[in-house]
């Protein structure tokens, strides 16, 4: 069984991004970039499926600028067998990524496509669902447990208020939640070996996909800072403020 894993190169989660002075965008020049943490979980899940003898080949795919190669090398070091880089300098929004991923999936014909539930930069939480839609496949989003059956997969999903288990027929798209697994630390010999694994290049044009963005970012801003604290007289006033003003109850 072949597994396709999609990985995105994002600003490292430790970096506190800054808004450019003109408010046009966030300033990501020269900041540390890493694999989207949810996608690391996706790679880990695929590797575990392979280690368990359920998957036979893992293909990692990434879309975007040249440096996505580094992200793909990380996926290869984690255990993916080969990589595909859809190289483009264009801004890619989830719909475009889903269209590209669909084309790759059509060519590769995997039984599972696994990717993170969201990327920690745009926080969109869309690509997996869109890919499933375009392929006409089932989707198991926010997965915290994956159990492969014969021609189907049982996915336990983290839903508001608890867990839900659904049975999906294969092929299917899965998106990972935090508790699905804990990604391994990459082994040094595997980093060295990853350099020798195949990494193929393609492009949106090769795949016949128009990636023109549908959303235009007009401006970005930092959220309003916490207002100075107030003292309240009693518990009644506190509860009222928490309900009506802070809206946390």
């Amino acid at each position, binding site marked *: 069984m072949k597994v396709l894993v999609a990985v995105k190169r994002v600003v490292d989660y430790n970096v506190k991004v800054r808004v450019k002075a003109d408010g046009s965008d966030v300033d990501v020049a020269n900041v540390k970039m890493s694999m989207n943490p949810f996608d690391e979980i996706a790679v880990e899940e695929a590797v575990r499926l392979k280690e368990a003898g359920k998957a036979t080949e893992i293909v990692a795919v990434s879309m975007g600028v040249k440096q996505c190669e*580094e992200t793909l090398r*990380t996926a290869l*070091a984690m255990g993916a067998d080969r990589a595909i880089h859809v190289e483009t300098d264009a801004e890619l929004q989830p719909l475009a990524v889903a269209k590209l991923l669909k084309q790759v999936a059509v060519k590769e014909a995997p039984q599972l496509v696994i990717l993170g539930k969201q990327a920690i930069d745009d926080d969109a939480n869309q690509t997996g669902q869109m890919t499933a839609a375009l392929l006409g496949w089932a989707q198991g989003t926010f997965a915290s447990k994956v159990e492969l059956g014969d021609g189907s997969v049982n996915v336990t999903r983290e839903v508001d208020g608890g867990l839900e288990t659904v049975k999906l027929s294969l092929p299917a798209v899965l998106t990972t939640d935090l508790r699905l697994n804990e990604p391994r*630390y*990459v*082994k*040094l010999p595997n980093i060295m070996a990853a*350099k020798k694994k195949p990494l193929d290049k393609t492009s949106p044009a090769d795949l016949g996909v128009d990636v023109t963005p549908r959303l235009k970012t007009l401006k970005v801003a930092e959220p309003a800072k916490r207002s100075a604290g107030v003292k309240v007289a009693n518990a009644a006033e506190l509860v009222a403020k928490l309900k009506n003003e802070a809206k946390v109850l």
Partner: protein
Amino acid sequence: MTYQVPLKDIRFVLSELAELPAVCTLPGYEDCNVELVDAILDEAAKFAEGVLAPINRNGDKGNTWKDYQVTTAEGFADAYHQFRDSGWVGLRAPQDVGGQGLPALVAMATEEMWCSANLSFSLAPLLTLGAIEAIHHHASEDLKATYLPRMASGEWTGTMNLTEPNAGSDLAQVRTKAVDNGDGTYSITGQKIFITWGEHDMADNIVHLVLARLPDAPAGVKGISLFIVPKYLVNADGTLGARNDARCVSIEHKLGIHGSPTAVMSFGDQGGAIGYLVGELNKGLGYMFTMMNHARLGVGVEGMAISERAYQHAVAYARDRVQSRELGSPNPASAAIIKHPDVRRMLMTMRAQIEAQRALAYYTATALDRAATHPHPEEKARNQALVNFLIPIVKGWNTEQANEITSLGVQVHGGMGFIEETGAAQYYRDARITAIYEGTTGIQALDLIGRKLASENGATARAVLAEVKAVAARLADAGPELQAFQAALNIAVDQASSCVDFVLAHFASNPRLPAAGSVPFLKLMGIVLGGWQMARAALAAQAKLAEDGADVDFLTAKLITARFYGEHLLPQVSGLTVAILHGGESVLALDEAAF
């Protein structure tokens, strides 16, 4: 405060100052390239930040000893198993024993991370590597085949058993006894102290390298042999056999690095520990010295690395802690203390020295790689001389300053720094040992003026100082912001030259005089050579700033830090010069009874 690997500075130093691309072209390192190193740095950083740094505080609670066994602090054994399974132990171990055989320069970058994240932990793999080096160079093929693959994989750890209660800096006093059993093994009896990671619960076996003396051996340093004494004997098929008569009879209560057990090792309490001779009889001390260079350089990195951790801790606190209004500001509200000039001075003093030390240490690692593998004999020899000269400076200066820098780290915190829970105090305590083990600063300084300077009549020192002078000349064209730095570096390098002349003039006739100023001399050389590296860094930063997409924030900070170094650290050279040239007699004058 979590530790974040200073990847930008590490990459800058590797590529701009330590010539990583050139190192990757040396024979044997062809598999290495900048992209691979980038990936290694990223993953090592994840490991250091995610696994080693979080258990550093646990380590401070110490190990427990019971019935000759040591239980390491919570999380250490698991972390070690992850470290071992990830293959990090063998990064610079030779490929023929299962290591990756990567350059010392690349290894240094990862070792800095391990040391910053968790100094106590880092010593276990570091000692294993030292033992691998000694065995690889000097032991028989049989011994190598038995021990090295499992040490390079991290399955077994290694130790250095040198010190005895009466043999510290002077190993000629070693009394541990080895008796030939006539079957190719030796029976070892005696006691060794200060054995770092001498006993623990993290690995299946511990391979002790033990200095001992045969009954008929010549007196002094020429009668010391080196033995492998494993905790568990190894059967012919490679499985572990009987427990050897080598036991940890207690562990020390220390000022710092509480996470690393410091064992008192007793050999032969029950008749004799079985040992295997490494190389030839009576050459043990020489064998130990083959790995001493690398080990001392490693301790220099420890000093810089613990300083880096203390600096990060102090910066985080200074940003958070709000106290007193900003001097000269119309705003009456209290400000984060990072706005206060003296706090800034302290942080800059820490930062500038750490950056200079990192650059000098990595530069030395490059020389070490060239000395080991350069195809041209002349370059090889030149680099070996450079390594010999630089190592006591890197070891002595980085670790002496680590004491000051981690102390400043405490100071930035004010009263909170004195409270253990804050965390700054641990770095201060942990740093203390670095100026002591692998040769105290006094030993490094004596080594510097004697074996490294006088023995070759200052040839390498003069060559290095000429390079410093040349870089200072290039600073003259580097624009007005670096002129004060340029002037300070020129003055400092001239003063350094006069101190070299002074040492050479007196070492043969009256060695006590330069020896009295040898530590000030070592520090002076550290400051001047650190200034040299900061000058190279400033020139590289200026050049890079002109490029498209330059990391303006980082490069500008580098230039400001270099300037600070020129204005605050280099002027210290003048004071040290006075002490070196004119202060020797007062050191020696006082009657012993008057102390």
